[in-house]
């Protein structure tokens, strides 16, 4: 596999990716400043912040931040670092700060917008001291269809514009939802591998026996979208044949799976249009939304890089605002069955991305292929990879001269 063998693919870093993007610590470091500090980053669903003083803390790239609701119901963000001597104002992932955050070290207080409102015994600082120098730098917050994002970059385009072609699709699947809760897990691999996995509709029938066996004998439909800028979408109809799955299960374990007695296979206690397309939307650079089986499963995932080869995935499960208690209970019990590192589907995706990171060490195999779908335009078939190329196209632009 030499460079000469691959001319038809174009070594342009969108169709064929140099695997060092997943392993080079310097690229990782650059991603933190060129990408994570300049894009819009999802922090919370607005339903997670109910009253004044409610806050959520997060790490954006490597920067600790706080998102807080103020007295007027407005959301504000600022760094989670005391301007006095650096202590984070909170170590909790969420909570309520009351009227203000009081730093536990020297008692400086900061209001719900990060403004310095109290410095004990200020006289010792002398005459030139003005408290507002010690306001915590604020961070831009914008909301899109109930999803709250921040950007560390004062110059970033507005969120609405940033969402670009993905906007309408995102709005459609999250409007009217609220948060059910979160789970997190870690895997030993680069953050982009998980994001790619979401933009990848070529793998499911191979990675997931429960998908592949359900597709047996079926002509698989669906589309893959490049959405400007950096976003993507997978859209495909529900087609699996349960009887094929049951047969495959029998082969696998020798157990007769009687799905009609298995509550996991029953209709949920709420209306769902089973004919609706599944939709998986990737938002640049590190956010993924899944809207499956007419919204039976509706989740958001965000990637929190820890190191070039370590990532935490944070998953937010969504329910429908105002749904019945029975519906809500069903969602709480069933939403994650396929998800997270314990999930019947994601379990295998975790294995795949960990295996990729292991294989990236083989420097004699230096490129990854993402060239499926050779047609012009931005839409291909289900198994095409326009979505991934959209990501790397934006990645390359953000990284600028730092890209490989």
């Amino acid at each position: 596999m030499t460079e000469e063998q691959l001319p038809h693919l174009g070594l342009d870093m969108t169709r064929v990716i140099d695997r060092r993007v997943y392993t080079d610590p310097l690229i990782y470091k650059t991603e933190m400043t060129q990408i994570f500090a300049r894009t819009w980053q999802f922090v919370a669903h607005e339903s997670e912040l109910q009253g004044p003083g409610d806050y959520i803390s997060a790490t954006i790239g490597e920067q600790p931040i706080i998102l807080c609701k103020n007295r007027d119901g407005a959301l504000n963000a600022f760094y989670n670092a005391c301007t006095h001597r650096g202590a984070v104002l909170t170590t909790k992932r969420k909570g309520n700060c009351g009227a203000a955050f009081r730093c536990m070290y020297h008692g400086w207080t900061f209001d719900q917008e990060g403004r310095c409102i109290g410095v004990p015994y200020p006289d010792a600082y002398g005459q030139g001291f003005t408290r507002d120098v010690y306001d915590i730098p604020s961070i831009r917050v914008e909301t899109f269809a109930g999803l709250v994002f921040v950007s560390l970059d004062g110059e970033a385009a507005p969120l609405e514009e940033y969402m670009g072609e993905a906007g309408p699709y995102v709005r459609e699947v999250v409007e009217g939802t609220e948060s059910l809760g979160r789970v997190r897990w870690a895997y030993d691999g680069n953050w982009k591998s998980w994001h790619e996995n979401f933009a990848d509709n070529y793998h499911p029938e191979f990675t997931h026996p429960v998908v592949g066996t359900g597709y047996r004998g079926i002509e698989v439909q669906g589309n893959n979208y490049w959405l400007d800028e950096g976003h993507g979408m997978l859209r495909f109809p529900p087609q699996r044949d349960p009887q094929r799955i049951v047969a495959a299960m029998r082969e696998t374990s020798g157990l007769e799976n009687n799905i009609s007695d298995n509550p996991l296979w029953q209709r949920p206690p709420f209306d769902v249009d089973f004919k609706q397309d599944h939709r998986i939307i990737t938002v640049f650079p590190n956010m993924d939304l899944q809207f499956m089986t007419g919204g039976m499963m509706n989740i958001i995932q965000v990637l929190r890089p820890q190191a070039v080869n370590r990532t935490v995935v944070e998953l937010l499960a969504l329910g429908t605002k105002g749904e019945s208690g029975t519906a809500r209970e069903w969602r709480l019990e069933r939403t994650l069955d396929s998800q997270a590192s314990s999930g019947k589907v994601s379990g295998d995706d975790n294995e795949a991305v960990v295996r990729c990171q292991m294989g990236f060490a083989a420097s004699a195999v230096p490129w990854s292929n993402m060239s499926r779908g050779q047609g012009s335009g931005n839409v291909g078939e289900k198994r095409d990879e326009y979505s991934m190329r959209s990501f790397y196209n934006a990645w390359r632009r953000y990284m600028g001269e730092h890209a490989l």
Partner: protein
Amino acid sequence: MQGGNDNCEGQIRALMFECARLVDHQRFREWLDLFTDDGSYSAITYENNQENGLYLFKDDGKESLKERVTFLMGFWQVGRGKTLHTLSNISITPLQDDEATASSYFVIYRTGDDGVTRFHACGEYEDHLVRQECRWLFKRRKAIVDNGVLPSHFTDLI
């Protein structure tokens, strides 16, 4: 060891240890037989158990349990590392002759593909047990997992 509660407690502990051993030796089909037909097996993080009730999974009834066993036997492609489920702090509360609840602590170690054995997860079991035809079985086992960030390979039975 013939009669009364004491006997029951010993038998219930034996059931719990048997469960750990079958799981650690990957004898999944036998694990299935430790549950009643309407048995339930679920897992949830400590935080979500305190707050919102969002489960990692909840298998209700034999058919759901069979599905999980099928996944463990190859419907997942995830590698099955050697695990060790250590049980401690077992408290059993008899409800009546053939019924009891129990709580206990679990700590799981797991040996990875690299051969290194590491702490994996820990937490608390809440069990509901019944005796059917002279045999104690799980009617409900709920694993409340301390880990706020789950490990990567977490499809093993907890």
